[in-house]
């Protein structure tokens, strides 16, 4: 654990929806090119926590962050009001709970991130489309119909397309918000394999309802309860010798 590089560090993070405090004084290290899982019962604030990393809360009114999320190596606080959320989102990608491809072709879905960054050259876009579709293990399924609508894909394929879309712009961190909760078990297996493969290139933070999923793929796991991170550590330790009683109860399926 000591030898890992820090990619980000959450310091005393509080978050409020209006006057309601949802996250309470959270601290968490995020290690580079590792998978960090956030687990905990519904409504514990895992998704809210995750969405701080790409400033998604800025889209809605009356939300307030306190504390800091330091992104390394530049040492900037990405939740500071002085930092443009668009800049943060350019560096930190996200895959959502429900596959949300744009109403465009498969090709254009992947090209989207490049186009909004001003890249127009077809040869570059072609290359990135092929590469990311291969990285997302989707290339063989779609190579013959790159220009057909993304909606024609199955749910699992759509989710892999969304992963490819996020990868196309080389994010430093990739956030996954329960990426397999709307997908069947076989497609889930493929996406889990994919995430393990992806951590060679990118730091991953995943929110999951499925504790077995966390046990299977995560290097580190944080257990959240009522807006607080109760316990954080290497996944094996959390799942074998949790130090907090609540973590133990949750993992053994006694509540949540």
């Amino acid at each position: 654990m000591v030898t890992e590089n820090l990619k980000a560090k959450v310091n005393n993070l509080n978050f409020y929806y209006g006057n309601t405090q949802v996250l309470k004084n959270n601290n968490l290290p995020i290690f580079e090119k590792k998978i960090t899982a956030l687990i905990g019962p519904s409504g514990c604030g895992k998704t809210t926590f995750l969405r701080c990393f790409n400033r998604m809360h800025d889209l809605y009114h009356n939300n307030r962050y306190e504390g800091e999320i330091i992104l390394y190596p530049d040492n900037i606080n990405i939740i500071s009001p002085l930092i443009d959320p668009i800049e943060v989102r350019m560096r930190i990608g996200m895959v959502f709970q429900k596959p949300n491809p744009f109403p465009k072709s498969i090709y254009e879905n992947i090209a989207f991130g490049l186009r909004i960054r001003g890249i127009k050259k077809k040869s570059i876009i072609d290359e990135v489309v092929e590469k990311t579709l291969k990285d997302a293990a989707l290339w063989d399924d779609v190579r013959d119909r790159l220009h057909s609508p993304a909606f024609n894909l199955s749910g699992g394929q759509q989710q892999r397309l969304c992963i490819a879309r996020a990868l196309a712009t080389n994010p430093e961190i990739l956030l996954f918000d329960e990426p397999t909760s709307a997908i069947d078990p076989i497609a889930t297996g493929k996406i889990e394999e994919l995430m393990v493969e992806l951590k060679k290139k990118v730091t991953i933070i995943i929110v999951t309802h499925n504790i077995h999923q966390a046990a299977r793929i995560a290097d580190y796991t944080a257990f959240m309860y009522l807006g607080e991170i109760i316990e954080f550590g290497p996944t094996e330790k959390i799942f074998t010798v949790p130090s907090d009683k609540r973590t133990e109860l949750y993992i053994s399926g006694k509540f949540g």
Partner: protein
Amino acid sequence: MKNQLGKIKENIIEMLLFLSAIFSIIITGSIVFILFYESIGFFKEVSIIEFLTGKEWTPLFANPKFGVLPLIAGTFLTTGIAISIALPLGLIAAIYLSEYATHRVREILKPVLEVLAAIPTVVYGYFALLFLTPLLQKFIPQISSFNALSPGIIMGIMIIPYVTSVSEDSMRAVPMHIREGSYAMGATRFQTAIKVIIPAAFSGIGAGFTLGISRAIGETMVVAIAAGMMPNFTLNPLEPVQTFTSYIVQVSLGDVPHGTLEYKTIFAAGVTLFLITLIFNIIGFWLKKRIIIRGVY
């Protein structure tokens, strides 16, 4: 017994619903029937070729000419001016209301915009004639006091709420997680609106455009008042023109005897207008089917 009563009640309700559904179809059918029936009489006396290719429309003169091209030109000219104002402005307003405005701003702006649609068209007509035309004359001295430009612009303003309202509804119906997907990629609001929301809401926006264009083609009062009632085969917006609708008004108001050829011209004009809007709607429908990517929400 009770069960049977319920069944009868159920049948009566179904019958009533069916009748109200079929009612509008019957009315539309009868209108189309009468239009075609009356214009058959007209085309017995005037050849379709002369009607479609003639460049003069003077049915009420002693030596009548029945070329419909001036009415087509007048209608297309005023409609063209109107939609070149209404479609862009209406869409921009919809983008603003749906993607930029805060809840409070939208709650104030939307009803205000809809008031535009509640103003009687005759008021718009006089506004074009007595306010906008004199104003235009200051900048374009050669413009006639009756012209296509002024009512065209006013019609455009009049139609904006229709375009905006329908487009905005369909843009707001695009689910939030699609929007978030775009923002999460680092897109700005504008990029999200243009590249994601508009394509996703395309069918609704197309419906708004179709509605706006139909309103422009069918609009009567504004052009009758401010465009001059002069069948003029021109595409010059500074000259007076006459549209199908304002011609029909002109004849309906005058003392043309029932059953004469002059009387039948309004049905011929009506049929032509009907066919133009029909063709336009079919094209719109076809475009929609071709352009829309399937599976839109």
